[in-house]
């Protein structure tokens, strides 16, 4: 399970994106846009195959917490896909399940490249957001978007 801090960071990204067009933070379309931005930036860094493997792992971890994601899949190019027989894809990733998926993806980045570099990558995807490292209560460094 990812930490509360990482979930908060996922929520902040959703808030950044939602603020652009006034949609709800937990709307499925907002989750999709955040995911797509991450996909584009991470594909440039790690390659499509590299991103796809990260996203697949994040989705598997997220499904354990949010069964509503069970029908969701990662496609060849790393984007999210919901089988046609399932309900609207945006609905599947809306609400808390979308936050969990994004948090799992960010959590993997934290685990592999650390919080500072993850923060730099997020900054690149959301250049208008201000990310800064600060000391958390437990002494760990984490990122905060304002």
């Amino acid at each position, binding site marked *: 399970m990812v930490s509360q801090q990482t979930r908060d960071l996922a929520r902040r990204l959703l808030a950044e994106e939602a603020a652009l067009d006034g949609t709800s933070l937990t709307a499925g379309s907002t989750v999709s846009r955040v995911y797509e931005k991450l996909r584009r930036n991470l594909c440039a860094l790690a390659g499509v195959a*590299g991103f796809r493997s990260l996203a697949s792992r994040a989705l598997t971890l997220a499904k354990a917490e949010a069964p509503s994601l069970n029908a969701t899949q990662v496609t060849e190019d790393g984007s999210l896909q919901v089988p046609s027989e399932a309900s609207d894809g945006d609905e599947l990733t809306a609400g808390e399940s979308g936050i969990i998926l994004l948090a799992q993806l960010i959590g993997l980045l934290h685990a592999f490249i650390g919080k500072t*570099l993850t923060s*730099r990558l997020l900054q690149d995807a959301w250049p208008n957001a201000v990310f800064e490292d600060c000391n958390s209560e437990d002494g760990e460094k984490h990122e905060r978007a304002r």
Partner: protein
Amino acid sequence: MSARDKVTIHKLHTGVPGLDEIVGGGLPEFSFNIIAGAPGSGKTTLAHQFVFANATPERPALYFTVLGESAIKMLRYQQQYTFFDPAKLPNSIRFINLSQVVLEKDLGAVLQEIIEEVEKANPAVVVVDSFRTMVRIPHGSPGEMDLQAFIQQLALFLASWQATTFLIGEYAEDELRDNPIFTVADGLFWLSQIAERNSVVRKLQIVKLRGQASVPGLHTFRITDAGLQAFSRTFGLSGHKSKPPSQRRLSIGIPELDKMMGGGIPEGDSVLVTGASGTGKSVLATQFIAEGIRQGEPGIVAVFEERPQAYTDRAGSFGLDLEAPQKDGTLLILYLRPLDLSVDETMNEILDAVKKIGAKRLVIDSLAGFEMALSPGFREDFRESLYRMIFALTGIGVTILSTVEVDESFTEFPFSTYSISFLTDDIIRLRYVSIEGRLRKILVIIKMRGGNHSQDIREYEITSKGMVIAGERLKNYQRLITGIPERLNRSNEKEAELPRKSKAKSKT
């Protein structure tokens, strides 16, 4: 063409300590370079150090990853190095993955992708890691670009776009010869590592570098948490002008020994003090360094067989204060004991210390300990490296006193077991002699390149004040240097004097 008409090639800091000196002052700007070597030899780390040293937001670095190590894993590991500055990502350093293009398309498409990114970012530095993996992808369609053409066009394009470039590739040593790919490169860096018994020896060679003279040969390097550190074979002193020979004599702190040496050790000499265990080599060396401190000449002591505190305490027992000069920075005692040191990095450490405090005197105590501290693979280079270091240091006016232990023989009179006498200007030999049921100590100056010296064999003692040479030369004995002298009776004494007198007569 006059010097004024020639284009100035700017040199870029490599970011690798010691490498700038090896490549002749820095890497030529806009050069197209290949870093080749076996997996694990440090190629990627070297490229990263260069990138982090030179990338700026205005002129960033583009780091293209192809196949092989994934960028995520590369970042995971590379950020462990102290040179890795996360603040440089992504504005100054951009990692771009080309694996999909390589897998799905041909080299022409890869080239096009690189060109687009370069035109967009206007980078100062471009790295392709690893270009070798591209050639292993079988495409095979007619008219497809081959690797040589790809590199040719890439080199042409990147030079025009004023980028300094590194291509990284895994190559075995025999592949370096006659490989047409390497003809395109302005610089070819070869990294290798060889396992010697339980140690790994890393070597770096600048196989070629256009536009400037690099230091030839194989240079040792080490990979630590700070990344690569290279140790030039010339110890960073290749550009230094040698000091003209000095007429000055340095006191050893033992007045009688100074007299025997015609006033002391000629400044800039390399002196070897040789003798069996317990003859007082270290005491003599300590007096030499302490006398230098007393005369305002900073000193370095490189010890291998005892710790600095023990060395300091022992000096104190002879009334020589080495604590205060260590505190005020005029004396450094280096303890160099790790068993996997390369000879060049050990010498580099000594040289750094010499430069740091402006040392005029250096003691190496002892050469046997020095050799033992080295990784086994480096021991065969010991004499050659020692020669280079002594030559470099004495060239800038440092006076070196080295000690070496020799087996006490009662049939021979060896100067040193290391056959390093040729490295030294002066040799002082200490030895035991058995006289009248007592083990006594004698010393003799074997050679002094810089001039005349006493031929006397003198007895000395190690007292609470250090080495003290007492009395006149030992006149009443012959065969002193065998260690088992014979006392001369009166008739023997006359016989012994005769050859000398007749020699003196023949001279007149």
